[in-house]
């Protein structure tokens, strides 16, 4: 273990020598609603960012974002019931149910203890806002304190395990994945669904816009999201939801399940610097990456791809590049780094789980997805970029960084799993 990781690191004990693997993926995202569709979009360099009708968000002028349109109704849910739900609940339920179907566990779900850990950052604000725009008064007089989305999802799918919601801003679904992995390793659940999601509302769009976190470019939607590029000026907001199924490798082998990869390591830290701005001191973000490698039992020599958080903000991209350089040390010139937010936009609470899918894509296809619009790399973002086009190469393990407001840092490492003989 490196001294940096040891000093205040946060990584899992080897309390249970249990490998936890991903056996199901469900998604409702601007780049597709399945692992196959998302992988195809990412590896072909497709962008989901497009122009939207601004008045729907209380705005004028040209506005670009990565939106989801139709949300598939999950199995065993009545269309009328589904249509009564708000879009956040629809997206989360649809993707969570799809992940169980994808794992081959949907019909067996009542015979297992299945938990759910969801990363959803702004659930109640959005519910109050939607209610307010519909003429409701819940925000003023909270008389109806109904269940949270994560409970409603659990009950809709008739699951019997624990359910919790966590939030770490743009790293929310990453923290959810970390906790879900722990629950599987501790034996609290047989299987755990984990992921998260977000939707765009007028207030959330305005909140980020007024913070000057969003790109102000209004020329071509395909060119706006440009992480690591010297001409970047902020991120492009997106929406969507994704969930994955975690279970022990032993359980997956026993039922001959498809294994997308092992969730091999997790590292967490906080900048403790500012409520919004990432710390210019990269030590603490690097600590999360080092802790994740330590947890996974790997070194930089074992990492073949890094999916960067890089949203396209001036300060954030530079801070992350510096953290990667510290963590990867002499291997930094070998390990390709890309930001798939150049294609997907920033899915906020759902970003970490979406980018976990990007890492699993790299492992499944042995190809690294690109960073679009990286025409002129910022010299202060000096890592091995993958501009414009995907790059075939050997990928044994991939790291996904997620950094949220409030200085919440998280790194998750996924590892290739050998097929059963």
């Amino acid at each position, binding site marked *: 273990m490196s001294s940096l990781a040891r000093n205040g690191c*946060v990584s899992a004990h080897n309390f249970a020598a249990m490998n936890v693997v991903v056996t199901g993926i469900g998604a409702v995202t601007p780049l597709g609603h399945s692992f196959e569709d998302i992988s195809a979009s990412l590896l072909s360099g497709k962008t989901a960012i497009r122009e939207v009708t601004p008045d729907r968000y209380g705005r004028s002028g040209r506005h670009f974002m990565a939106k989801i349109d139709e949300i598939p109704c999950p199995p065993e849910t009545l269309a009328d019931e589904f249509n009564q739900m708000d879009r956040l609940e629809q997206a989360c339920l649809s993707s969570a149910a799809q992940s169980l179907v994808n794992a081959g566990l949907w019909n067996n779900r009542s015979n297992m203890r299945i938990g759910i850990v969801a990363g959803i950052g702004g659930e109640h*604000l959005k519910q109050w806002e939607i209610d307010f725009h519909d003429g409701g008064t819940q*925000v003023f007089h909270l008389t109806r304190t*109904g269940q949270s989305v994560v409970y409603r999802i659990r009950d809709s799918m008739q699951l*019997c395990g624990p*359910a919790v919601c966590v939030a770490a801003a743009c790293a929310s679904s990453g923290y959810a994945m970390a906790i879900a992995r722990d629950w599987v390793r501790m034996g609290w659940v047989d299987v755990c669904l984990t992921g998260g999601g977000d939707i765009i509302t007028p207030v959330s769009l305005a909140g980020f816009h007024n913070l000057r976190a969003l790109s102000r470019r209004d020329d071509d939607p395909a060119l706006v999201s440009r992480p690591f590029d010297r001409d970047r000026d902020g991120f492009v907001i997106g929406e969507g939801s994704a969930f994955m199924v975690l279970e022990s490798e032993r359980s997956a082998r026993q039922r001959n399940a498809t294994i997308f990869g092992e969730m091999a390591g997790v590292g967490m830290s*906080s900048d403790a610097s500012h409520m919004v701005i990432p710390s210019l001191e990269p030590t603490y973000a690097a600590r999360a990456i080092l802790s994740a490698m330590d947890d996974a039992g790997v070194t930089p020599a074992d990492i073949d791809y890094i999916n960067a958080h890089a949203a396209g903000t001036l300060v954030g991209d530079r801070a992350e590049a510096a953290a990667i350089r510290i963590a990867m040390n002499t291997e930094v010139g070998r390990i390709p780094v890309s930001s798939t937010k150049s294609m997907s936009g920033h899915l906020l609470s759902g970003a970490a789980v979406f980018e976990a899918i990007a890492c699993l894509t790299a492992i499944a296809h042995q190809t690294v997805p690109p960073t679009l619009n990286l025409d002129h790399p910022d010299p202060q973002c000096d890592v091995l970029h993958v501009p414009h086009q995907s790059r075939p190469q050997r990928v044994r393990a991939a790291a996904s960084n997620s950094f949220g407001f409030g200085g919440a840092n998280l790194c998750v490492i996924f590892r290739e799993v050998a097929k059963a003989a």
Partner: protein
Amino acid sequence: MTFGFKQSANESFLLMVSVKSSMETLSQPHCSVTSHAFVQTTVSGIDLLRKNPCSTRAVSELPPRFLRHSDEHTVVGISAVLHAMNRFEDQTRSIESWGALAAPRHPGRLMAAQTLCSVRTKGVSGVSTQVIPQCLLHGMSSAVSVGLGMHGPNFGIGGGPDALQEGLTIAVGFLHTRIVPGIWMIFTQWDQEPVLSAEDGSPLSDSSICGLAMAIEPAGTQPARIRMSIDRSACSWNDQTKGPHARADHALRDLSQALDSIANGELARWSLSSGWGASLHVESLNSLSSREAA
């Protein structure tokens, strides 16, 4: 304004999680609650607490005016943490690597109401830049981490009526699986959600808001425990499982009182059903030992 905690020179509790099947114990992680504090104030008392979150000598100082934009839950939560820090036996101990986990119930509603009223009159340009960082679920844990200089993980939990159960469920597992020297687990809630003006979002009632901060560390030789037991036989979905089971408005206050009693050397027990076959128990080590012996 009242501060509902009692000083105790010998406060530490053992946090134990028992995950049991019908046949065997799968895992028994232990950790301790080494300090706690309960803070209560009202809408009208928030401003005072915002300026001076800890009336007694603070072992850790916040940056000047740090709480000026903070959500009411954050103000009360940080105040509880500062008071609990003052109760540490070793006042020089470092919490630099500690984590901050915060489970508020309905955070940010006052700012949300004011924001929506502002949008109605000014359009979306009236949305404050403080809404995203301060009034979402991650706001309190972020503020604790930033304000007290803690570099361990920070995240929010719950946010809804079941925040207490969700927070405890995560907390009892967290120290078992993570290499952190300790965490602050913070709960906040309004006793009764205040009624707000539909004109400008200002409060129309002087409701009471409370916060409980618990310092949780790896186990030692502590006089009391919290444990979680999971009944495997409850592993089936039915109407009893459906929905939360632990949202009583007085549950947080009851938990604080149980911690006070145990800190004072009394036998006390507090329990919470999770609704998925698990129960969380706060109890003195003596009472646990007695029961096990019986």
